[in-house]
């Protein structure tokens, strides 16, 4: 395509950005006129222009036309035209549904063409776009292509990966069936390319359906065994720099990580494979090329992952550890990085923990000498993982000294880790106090609230360390410049335990007070507030300094402070010190009671930072291993709660405001009209949403939606025509959700009948956190549809969009009405107008259990009337639907037929639409 080459060189010759834009605009105008022109373009020109558009797009410019021409190219018979068409479509994925239909048509034709190159292009396009519409159209078709006997190998490979992609995005649309067993047998295929592609697919499927794919284990082991024992030339082109089929080996080892260790027979063979892989690492390299060692080690690291995953062969674990130990000193930075990373997981296995510990010096050395911060970061992680009581003092000391020069990006994490280790493995709490004070001295800015809260919790709870703590903070405060965090800790501790050192004339009450007060003016408002509390505590502890303190409190800078909190404290404390008797003062200003033991606030913080899974695992395994963990402030079992503990009040008297304030809702809680232009595209309802919705018809609480990222729980209550629903959004990941925006959507039909009000939630949802949203509900008039809850947020780099139906149904506004048999039948007869009755006869979907049925009718909201129906097997109910405008009386009768496993449900209400809707809702419950 000469024209394209000319255009590209023109662009390259542009001297400035402006010139480039000018040239591009000229080209765009040209292409636009060609596409619009009367003369039909031939395929070649179309291809050329589409390719130019693609180039312009890849330069970073927006392209808003040409899609149609690209779609036209798809149906060309010429391969290259088709190919460019598909390339354009897969690069400029567009969810324009009109186009998707046309694209799907073209794909359908190509899939049916039996031309392997065309089929390959079509499968590629499906995998690239991977949208739900495509999954709907092709998820049923592709398995057939995959297992058909006459499919070419190359097409099989594409089909396997294409199906994998669809399964990842829309697992519900990929039907399981006969084909699954045949897919497993692709592991035995002659063609290694087919095996490679199929292994990925099987691994993903096995993850969700382990039982169905169980046979893949032995097949994978024997395939792996054949590969690792083959001579380097056996596999021809699948040998990569003398390493036989490294990609396939890695994939097979990964597939095996979906399962526990296999049965003894297979297990023996697998162990042999793993040993062979470990042995090969010791052999002299067959090539000096880095590709050879990389490929070999890729397999080795994956094998070690499997060994760690099985965690059952001590021999293999220790060998793995020794191998990684060698890599720790390798000249390749990459290998050192990976060895540190891999050893972290080994450290948590009881079999290899000791072996990992032997490498402590090397790891400490890495911390000091590695030039790459990402490697040093791994070293910190590993030190943290290998720490136990025997080496804690050394590791903590090394981390502290590293902290002085550490990169700013990792300081906070190191601070947290040091604080946790110091607490966890403290034999002697004086060491703990020293460590934390050092931490504040070295990296005060990175010491988060949680860290200094925790040191205070511990000092308060352990009386053996209180005197030492008071003495140490007093000494630390002598430094001319000390960090504000130290002032906080010092203020709090001296306020509580200053009396323990007051006997020493060098730290007499007045000296203590003057020392603290010398820092006062340099501190921020919260710290000053804390110091004021310390002063009033001093009034109680040391009556002799009372006049001095009262003078301070009385000064204009306190009593008339511009800050309301400080002013209030000054006024109240001054008053308290003047009016209260010594006894009352002593009671009010008593020493703080011990803090209830709970999960360490710092651990919670680290979890938040690093993701709960990593930290929790480490902690749990360690706890099992060492029984001698500290009795006192041991963190509660980490699994009990993933939520961070409330911080102890930073205020000695607990008078102050809460330390952490919720963010004010942005936009002042204004209602946002979702029907305005700004409304973004709403995702189709999530799979399974219908089922979940039905479950909520008869109950008010539970989990409405759950995927890998997000869990939505509901709690609701209704009275008459009003209701309130609490929606809980749980972030299941360790990463924060950004721009988190839940939106309630009522269709035009629903809107006049149902009134929903809520406030926006905080747009950031931290990893592992849960946020709550309250929806106030008013039923204005009877309604049929349900509102939709749409949630949009960013997770990692990707935009997430979920929609679920919100189970606000008409029956929620039911008030049960008790009535006698006679009344019931009288009213029943009154509602005999044919429009008032709706009847449904349907097959039971659940076992026909009387008690369950009763519970459902009550859950539905109506009263269950006993001894009304002459036939005791039948159920009758009555109630009133409350809406703002009217009240609608409802009677219902449910007649089960056990033999036929059928029900007949009859609803009579004064309004046809209500009868209809209630009947629909209730029928779905049985």
């Amino acid at each position: 395509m000469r024209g394209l080459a000319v255009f590209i060189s023109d662009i390259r010759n542009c001297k400035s950005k402006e010139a480039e834009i000018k040239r591009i605009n000229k080209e765009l105008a040209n292409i636009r006129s060609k596409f619009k022109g009367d003369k039909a373009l031939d395929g070649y020109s179309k291809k050329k222009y589409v390719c130019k558009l693609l180039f312009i797009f890849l330069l970073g410019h927006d392209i808003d036309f040409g899609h149609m021409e690209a779609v036209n190219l798809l149906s060309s018979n010429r391969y290259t035209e088709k190919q460019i068409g598909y390339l354009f479509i897969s690069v400029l994925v567009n969810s324009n549904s009109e186009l998707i239909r046309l694209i799907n048509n073209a794909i359908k034709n190509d899939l049916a063409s039996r031309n392997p190159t065309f089929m390959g292009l079509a499968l590629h396009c499906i995998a690239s776009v991977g949208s739900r519409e495509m999954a709907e159209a092709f998820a049923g078709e592709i398995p057939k292509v995959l297992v058909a006997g006459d499919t070419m190998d190359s097409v099989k490979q594409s089909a396997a990966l294409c199906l994998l992609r669809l399964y990842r995005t829309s697992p519900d649309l990929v039907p399981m069936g006969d084909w699954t067993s045949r897919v497993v047998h692709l592991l035995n295929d002659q063609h290694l390319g087919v095996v490679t592609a199929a292994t990925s697919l099987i691994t993903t499927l096995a993850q969700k359906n382990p039982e169905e794919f169980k046979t893949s284990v032995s097949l994978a082991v024997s395939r792996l065994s054949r590969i690792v024992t083959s001579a380097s030339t056996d596999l021809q082109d699948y040998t990569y720099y003398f390493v036989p089929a490294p990609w396939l080996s890695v994939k097979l080892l990964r597939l095996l990580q979906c399962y526990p260790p296999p049965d003894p027979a297979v297990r023996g063979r697998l162990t042999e494979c793993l040993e062979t892989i470990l042995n090969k690492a010791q052999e002299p390299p067959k090539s000096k090329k880095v590709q050879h060692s990389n490929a070999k080690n890729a397999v080795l690291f994956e094998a070690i992952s499997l060994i760690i995953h099985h965690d059952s062969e001590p021999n293999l674990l220790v060998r793995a550890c020794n191998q990684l130990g060698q890599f720790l000193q390798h000249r390749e930075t990459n290998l050192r990085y990976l060895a540190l990373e891999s050893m972290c997981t080994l450290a948590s296995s009881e079999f290899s923990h000791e072996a990992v510990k032997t490498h402590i010096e090397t790891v400490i050395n890495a911390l000091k000498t590695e030039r790459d911060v990402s490697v040093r970061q791994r070293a910190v992680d590993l030190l943290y993982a290998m720490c136990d009581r025997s080496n804690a003092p050394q590791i903590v000391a090394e981390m502290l000294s590293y902290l002085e020069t550490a990169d700013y990006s990792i300081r906070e994490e190191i601070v947290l880790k040091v604080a946790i280790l110091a607490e966890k493995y403290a034999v002697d709490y004086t060491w703990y106090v020293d460590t934390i004070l050092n931490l504040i001295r070295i990296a005060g800015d990175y010491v988060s609230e949680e860290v200094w809260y925790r040191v205070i919790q511990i000092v308060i709870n352990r009386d053996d360390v209180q005197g030492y703590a008071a003495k140490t903070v007093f000494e630390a405060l002598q430094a001319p410049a000390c960090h504000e965090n130290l002032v906080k800790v010092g203020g709090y501790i001296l306020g509580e335990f200053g009396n323990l050192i007051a006997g020493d004339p060098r730290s007499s009450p007045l000296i203590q007070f003057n020392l603290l007060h010398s820092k006062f003016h340099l501190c921020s408002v919260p710290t000053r507030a804390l110091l004021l509390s310390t002063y009033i505590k001093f009034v109680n502890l040391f009556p002799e300094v009372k006049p001095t303190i009262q003078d301070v409190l009385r000064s204009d800078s306190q009593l008339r402070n511009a800050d309301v909190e400080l002013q209030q404290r000054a006024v109240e404390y001054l008053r308290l010190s003047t009016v209260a008797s010594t006894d009352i003062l002593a009671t009010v200003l008593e020493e703080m009671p011990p803090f209830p033991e709970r999960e360490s606030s710092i651990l919670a913080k680290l979890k938040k930072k690093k993701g709960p899974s990593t930290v929790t695992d480490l902690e749990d395994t360690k706890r099992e291993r060492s029984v001698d963990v500290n009795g006192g402030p041991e963190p509660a079992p980490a699994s009990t709660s993933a939520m961070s503990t409330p911080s102890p009040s930073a205020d000695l008297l607990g008078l102050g405001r809460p330390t952490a304030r919720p963010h004010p809702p942005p936009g002042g809680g204004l209602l946002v009209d979702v029907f305005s232009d700004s409304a973004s595209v709403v995702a189709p309802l999530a799979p399974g949403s219908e089922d979940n919705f039905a479950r909520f018809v008869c109950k008010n609480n539970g989990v409405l939606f759950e995927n890998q990222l997000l869990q939505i729980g509901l709690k609701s209550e209704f009275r008459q025509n009003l209701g309130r629903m609490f929606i809980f959004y749980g972030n299941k990941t360790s990463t924060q959700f950004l721009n988190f925006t839940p939106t309630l959507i009522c269709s035009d039909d629903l809107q006049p009948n149902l009134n929903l009000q809520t406030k926006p939630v905080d747009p950031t949802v931290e990893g592992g956190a849960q946020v709550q949203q309250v929806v106030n509900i008013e039923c204005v008039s009877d309604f049929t549809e349900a509102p939709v809850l749409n949630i949009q947020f960013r997770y990692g780099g990707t935009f997430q969009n979920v929609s679920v139906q919100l189970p606000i149904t008409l029956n929620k506004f039911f008030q049960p009405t008790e009535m006698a048999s006679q009344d019931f039948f009288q009213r029943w007869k009154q509602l005999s107008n044919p429009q008032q009755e709706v009847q449904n006869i349907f097959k039971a979907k659940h076992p026909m259990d009387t008690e369950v049925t009763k519970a459902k009718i009550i859950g539905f909201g109506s009263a269950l009337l006993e001894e009304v129906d002459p036939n005791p097997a039948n159920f009758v109910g009555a109630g009133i639907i409350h809406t703002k405008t009217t009240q609608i009386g409802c009677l219902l009768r449910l007649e089960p037929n056990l033999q036929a496993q059928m029900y007949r449900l009859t609803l009579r209400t004064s309004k046809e639409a209500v009868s209809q809707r209630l009947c629909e809702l209730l029928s779905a419950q049985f």
Partner: protein
Amino acid sequence: MVGCAKREGRGKRGAWAAPAGVLGGRPRGEPLCLPSGPQRPPLPQLMRFMLLFSRQGKLRLQKWYLATSDKERKKMVRELMQVVLARKPKMCSFLEWRDLKVVYKRYASLYFCCAIEGQDNELITLELIHRYVELLDKYFGSVCELDIIFNFEKAYFILDEFLMGGDVQDTSKKSVLKAIEQADLLQEEDESPRSVLEEMGLA
């Protein structure tokens, strides 16, 4: 955030002034569904995206394996290029970036950069980059940046033969190149010779 805001004027706002009273207080107790810890099963390797860019920070090729909005793509590319270009030679080829792991390698003036997930195999990804470079090299005959600029569509075709949906499709150099050569043969059959004028769109 509520759909019914339109009719706020008609609805009685006052009725909502004290819903707590109407409903008799808040539900008691903790939120009912605590999120369970995330699980990290060893999924098969899935690349999130691959980028090729020059030392000057010009993007030469981008392939995304997970639907990402255009705006987000641009932001990620900009950010990642900055991070990678700032790294010194001899540094480790892996880095943690956002919630992903980035594996990169520099070949002459071009950086090849893949984003994978945390537990994926870094070394095999590094070799995947190398194999792709080998394929380009073999096809273009000692490939250089210009080849990729002028024949970007070919670079895409080769990548597509090698990777699909972020996973390796075939690791055999021969099979991949055979497929590409076949396509080229088809192209030659397709293309009847054209005059220069025709090419320029003047005919």
